[in-house]
């Protein structure tokens, strides 16, 4: 569950990135967050990851009160969230298997569990035969699938996808969103940030629009 109450962010250069934003995304929901460049979408994600702290307001993510969560304990919050980014953010020196397994290794998961879980998740995103490949040997769509597998492997309560289709062709974009929808149907909350209105209209559902740091629309479409 994600909850923001009267959250404002003003950067040190005086820019008001978010202004009095209140928002609640319940467990098991799928929500699109749309807005133009500079609307405040990235700031919203940084807040949820505890990369930055709000100037005012309260944020709760997966039961963590971010106001009270210390910076050096941020990993505890991040372990409950799966991330998918526009630029995939894969470690280029690790193959597909190791990129996905890294999440489990970093939480001291048992070796046996890693050996079973990782191939299963990789096959879920359709990359069974690519486990030994390195990111630079994969297409953009395949890299995003690896990122999805990495986001899924720890069975997170929430997946935040930041422009996951930004670098993909329309067909692959649809496949990725369909995969996210499938993950959501299994009970995981998904928050997908995008500026592709076509895609939002195609899939429909809860849509939150941010404009100039304020929520201007929050309703179900389609």
């Amino acid at each position, binding site marked *: 569950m994600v909850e923001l109450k009267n959250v404002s962010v003003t950067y040190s250069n005086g820019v008001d990135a978010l202004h009095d934003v209140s928002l609640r995304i319940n467990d098991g929901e799928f929500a699109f967050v749309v807005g133009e460049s500079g609307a405040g979408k990235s700031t919203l994600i940084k807040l949820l990851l505890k990369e930055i702290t709000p100037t005012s307001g309260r944020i709760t993510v997966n039961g963590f009160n971010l106001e009270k969560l210390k910076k050096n304990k941020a*990993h505890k919050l991040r*372990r409950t969230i799966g*991330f998918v980014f526009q630029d995939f953010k894969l*470690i280029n020196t690790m193959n597909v298997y190791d990129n996905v397994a890294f999440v489990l*290794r*970093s939480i001291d998961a048992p070796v046996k569990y890693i050996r079973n879980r990782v191939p299963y998740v990789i096959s879920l995103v359709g990359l069974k035969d690519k486990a030994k490949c390195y990111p630079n040997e994969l297409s953009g769509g395949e890299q995003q699938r690896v990122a999805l597998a990495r986001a899924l492997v720890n069975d997170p309560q929430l997946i935040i996808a930041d422009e996951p289709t930004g670098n993909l062709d329309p067909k692959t974009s649809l496949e990725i969103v369909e995969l996210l929808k499938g993950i959501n149907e299994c009970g995981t909350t998904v928050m997908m940030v995008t500026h592709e209105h076509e895609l939002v209209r195609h899939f429909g559902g809860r849509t939150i629009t941010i404009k100039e740091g304020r929520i201007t629309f929050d309703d179900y479409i389609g």
Partner: protein
Amino acid sequence: MKLSSMNYLFKQGMKNIWTNRIMSVASFCILAVSLLLIGFTMLFVANINRFVSGIENKNEVVIFLKDDVDESTASAMENTIKNINNVEKVNFYSKEQALEDMKKGMENENADELFSYVGEENPLPDAFRIRIANIEEISPTLMEINRLEGIDSIKSPTDFINILTGLKRFIGIVSLVILLALILVSFVIISNAARASVDIRKREIAIMKLVGATNTFIKVPFFVEGMFIGILAGLASAAITCLGYNELVKVLSQDMTLWSIMSINGFIPVSEFIWKIFIGYAAAGMIISAFGTVMSTRKYLKV
């Protein structure tokens, strides 16, 4: 942290050395050269100290006794001198022995003819040959000896000793300054190399942080990587130091005349420090490199 995780992180660190081989080689070279410079400077200083100590050990004060000092008085004087602080050794040097040594020393110069003029009477005085423990404290020691009855004169290389002591202090200070400067410069260069090595992986570190890895989990492979490169650089530079030093000593020892004039018996042999060098270099390389690398990751861990 579980043993399996430690095993994974160790392997990851070793793998990173190969994955980032260009930076690994650069770090290795920089560290090895720095250790070589420091090592050779230390060996140079150690040899200089050995030479100066060698000269110091040849110090000898000769106390000439008056003619009227009999055997029992001389024996009492010897005991008194022995009990003076800073006197390491006292030897009675009789006038007969002195004459004998003088004759031996002049064998090739018609000594018999020369000494026939001297006749039966030995003109040389009895004496004590004294070795001083701490040469820097020679003046107060001599003053104390001088208070004894029966002393005719004292011959001591005070001026030479003063110059030597000053030289030793000067060398000590200069070498310390050079060593500190070298260590400082090396540390700056090494930490820059470590920073550059970490810098090209800042994206990797940021991703690891985002997927929930702890700082320790991220740092351990860097630590292992730095440690291993440091040990390798330490061992390589120790080997080069020993081989290079040995060759240098061989070349310099070909003609010992000059060194003999300077009362230098020889250089410190490699066998005297070989293990210290290998262990010291490997430990220094490991510590500098491992901690330098880990410290460089700190900036990127604040995500």
